């Protein structure tokens, strides 16, 4: 799915387009959950959206004649006032993300909404990004939309205070957008470069605006650059994942690494250390260094990161770094402590750690990982390793 859908409708009917788009996605999430994802999801969405637009204009003629007065204040004007000066947010899509990140909703709900309406995420993808259940997300989205409607939602130019106040949520949205592209789970594709480049483009716009060009924004952009530099090396020709150790380092994009360094330096103003700083630091060590203490530095950063904000992914990655520094045996104790037993990556990690210690335990963990993963490409990679171990165990 692309994030273009909203822009496709143009600026004239932005609020209407947004409603139609969100309805389309909602329909998609319902329809796809039952019937599976169609061969060409983008085309499917466009067709549904087009039909919905036609329906809308049919309804509007009734509206115009009968209840125009009632809807006028919050439906028609919003579209006409849609203009942004360069001092505000110049990019139309970014402006919408800022508009959706309305503090009348909780931060999480704002992000869900932005991901769904503007980045074209399915409920499933949002659930993945938040490591939550699809049902929870659906409810959260529904509540958020009702809230916005009650709040007389309008896309008006925002002032400096509003932009600054909403920046954190916007950064988080862009971060999740990038991650979904980089670690794509739902579309049976390992990486979706379109999402990655869209996230980078939007973050870049943020660095061009005086209000939003903060250390955090730069740190996030540095992180995206470092990660993207490895995009080419992360999958083989048939789209399978290539593990870090086996990547062809000559495929790493030096220009992007250089850009990452540049933004990381820019990010180092003031005393604030955000999670983007820490993650960019980790990505820096991954990308740039053959230093023998590399993993020590990485572990240190993961330690700080997990203290700043817990997430299962961070906890698992930290344990991997821990294994690199302190060995597999000690890391197994740390890993088991995490108790993320319904997480495929948890079993993947334990499988990896046990490979050198107890093949049978390793195999059983890899089997559980294969069962739990929803991503086809991840399943392929895990199965490959599983078969290799079974061969060895014979």
């Amino acid at each position, binding site marked *: 799915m692309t994030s273009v859908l909203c822009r496709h409708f143009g600026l004239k009917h932005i609020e209407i387009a947004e409603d139609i788009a969100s309805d389309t996605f909602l329909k998609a999430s319902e329809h796809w959950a039952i019937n599976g994802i169609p061969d060409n999801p983008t085309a499917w969405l466009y067709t549904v959206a087009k039909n919905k637009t036609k329906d809308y204009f049919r309804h509007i003629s009734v509206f115009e004649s009968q209840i125009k007065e009632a809807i006028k204040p919050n439906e028609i004007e919003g579209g006409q006032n849609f203009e942004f000066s360069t001092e505000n947010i110049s990019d139309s899509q970014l402006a919408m993300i800022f508009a959706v990140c309305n503090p009348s909703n909780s931060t999480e709900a704002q992000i869900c909404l932005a991901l769904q309406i503007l980045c074209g995420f399915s409920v499933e993808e949002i659930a993945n990004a938040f490591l939550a259940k699809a049902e929870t997300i659906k409810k959260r989205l529904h509540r958020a939309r009702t809230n916005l409607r009650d709040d007389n939602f309008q896309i008006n130019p925002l002032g400096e205070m509003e932009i600054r106040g909403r920046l954190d949520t916007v950064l988080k949205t862009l971060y999740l957008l990038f991650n979904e592209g980089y670690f794509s789970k739902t579309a049976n594709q390992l990486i979706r470069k379109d999402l990655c480049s869209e996230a980078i483009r939007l973050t870049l716009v943020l660095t061009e605006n005086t209000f939003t060009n903060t250390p955090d924004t730069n740190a996030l952009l540095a992180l995206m650059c470092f990660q993207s530099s490895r995009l080419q090396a992360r999958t083989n020709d048939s789209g399978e994942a290539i593990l870090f150790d086996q990547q062809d380092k000559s495929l790493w994009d030096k220009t992007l690494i250089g850009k990452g360094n540049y933004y990381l330096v820019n990010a180092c103003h003031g005393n604030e250390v955000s999670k983007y700083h820490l993650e960019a630091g980790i990505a820096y060590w991954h990308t740039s260094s053959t230093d023998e203490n590399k993993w020590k530095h990485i572990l240190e950063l993961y*330690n700080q990161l*997990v*203290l700043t904000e817990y997430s299962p992914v961070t906890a698992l990655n*930290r344990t991997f770094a*821990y294994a690199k520094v302190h060995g597999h045996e000690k890391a197994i104790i*740390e890993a088991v402590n995490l108790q993320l037993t319904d997480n495929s990556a948890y079993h993947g990690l334990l499988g990896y750690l046990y490979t050198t210690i107890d093949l049978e335990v390793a195999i059983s963990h890899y089997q559980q990982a294969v069962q739990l993963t929803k991503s086809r490409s991840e399943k392929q990679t895990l199965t490959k390793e599983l078969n290799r171990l079974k061969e060895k165990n014979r």
Partner: protein
Amino acid sequence: MKEFALIFRLKDIADFKPSPEQMQERMNWLAGIAAQNKLVDKGNTLLPIPGSAKTVKPGNVVTDGPYTEIKEFISGYIVVSTENIDEAVEIAKANPIFDQVGGNIEVREVLKRD
């Protein structure tokens, strides 16, 4: 889930400044708790050095530091969230100070004042 404060006590003021390696080990321990999503509050260090520590007693008596009468002194605390006190004790047992410098950790359930 219940919350427990882990209160660290050291024996010797000289142990208060850990080496970088000791610091790293302590950090690993703390991050290990956070990685299990059991760290409620990463707490703070309580400085025991002159000028940073006084004890106020009845009759406007103020003495330097906490260490005139007791040998041990509190060096800091964290708060963890666990199923029960045994689990909190297990976490405390893994603290590297026992290997590094000695001292003890008091585990106390937190009763919220609200």
